């Protein structure tokens, strides 16, 4: 969007470009399913024939982070798994959003124990929190629509000049 970068103020041209870009982005959100435990099964049901997520534009659930915009963290995140989730999040290109699905990701859920992270917002920026254990598939579709509304209000200018997110290179296998 080179031309757009030169126009910094809100004119008729930029707002139309904003509207078209936001409309295109929000109607083709491709989720990255970070399916860890029970909520992943409800996410599979959302992809199934009864609660169809493809009619909302999320035609494919690509399992590679390079081609996705939305990460749905579904399942309990433990301390060991937190590094993996953060690594995958860093590999996703901008712009990206995160849904914290279920009680376990929002706040640790029913697991007050030594190995469960009490809420993934301790290391990831979260956009939508979903309640439920597990949330019904309709609830996940509601969250997707909320994210789509949020994307619909963004401007293209918000995503320019972003610093490269720090991708930690570590030698852990």
């Amino acid at each position, binding site marked *: 969007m080179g031309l757009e970068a030169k126009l910094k103020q809100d004119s008729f041209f930029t707002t139309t470009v904003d509207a078209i870009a936001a409309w295109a982005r929000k109607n083709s959100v491709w989720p990255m399913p970070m399916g860890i435990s029970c909520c992943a099964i409800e996410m599979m049901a959302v992809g199934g024939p009864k609660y169809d997520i493809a009619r909302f534009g999320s035609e494919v659930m690509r399992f590679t982070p390079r081609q996705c915009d939305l990460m749905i963290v579904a399942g309990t995140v433990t*301390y*060991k798994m937190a590094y993996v989730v*953060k690594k995958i999040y860093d590999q996703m290109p901008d712009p990206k959003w995160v849904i914290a699905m279920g009680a376990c990701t929002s706040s640790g859920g029913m697991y*007050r*124990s030594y*190995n469960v992270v009490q809420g993934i917002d301790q290391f990831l920026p979260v956009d939508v929190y979903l309640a439920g254990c597990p949330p019904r598939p309709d609830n996940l579709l509601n969250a997707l629509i909320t994210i789509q509304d949020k994307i619909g209000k963004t401007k293209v200018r918000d995503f320019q000049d972003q610093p490269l997110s720090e991708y*930690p290179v570590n030698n852990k296998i």
Partner: protein
Amino acid sequence: MERKEIIIQKIKDKLPGVQFTTAEFRGELSIILNKKDIVNLSSFLKDDPDLAFNFCEDVTAIDWARRNQRFTMVYHIFSMKNKFRLKLKCDVEEEDCNIDSVSSVWKTADWEERETYDMYGIHFNNHPDLRRMYMPEEFEYYPLRKDFPLMGIPGSLPLPKK
């Protein structure tokens, strides 16, 4: 004779050097023995053609949180031929926290003993590959011991930065 009496009689006949006592609760028989005899008794129970305890269901430990004989190792074994379940128990001290591994007798015990080592800190001699099972390798504590708090020790497991 009932199956329980057959087993006890056979152990007394064939392995006279093994001291053991028995206990029973809700129809389940347990044999309590000394920890140095465990591999001997296990291979006898498995190889005997009449007893044939060829399936090891579970290996675990109990932490009694007392000064003497703090841990008890429990082995659940099952005989598919006779459809009979048996428990073997031995006491382990806290200072001398090791016991021989039975993974040479039943391969199932391999991972179960690794899990017991991870959770309780009991070291298994002659184990082919004793690593931690669930916790990260650099974790310093043993979670299922009674002196480890439920919420964990703050700072023992680091989180990635935001």
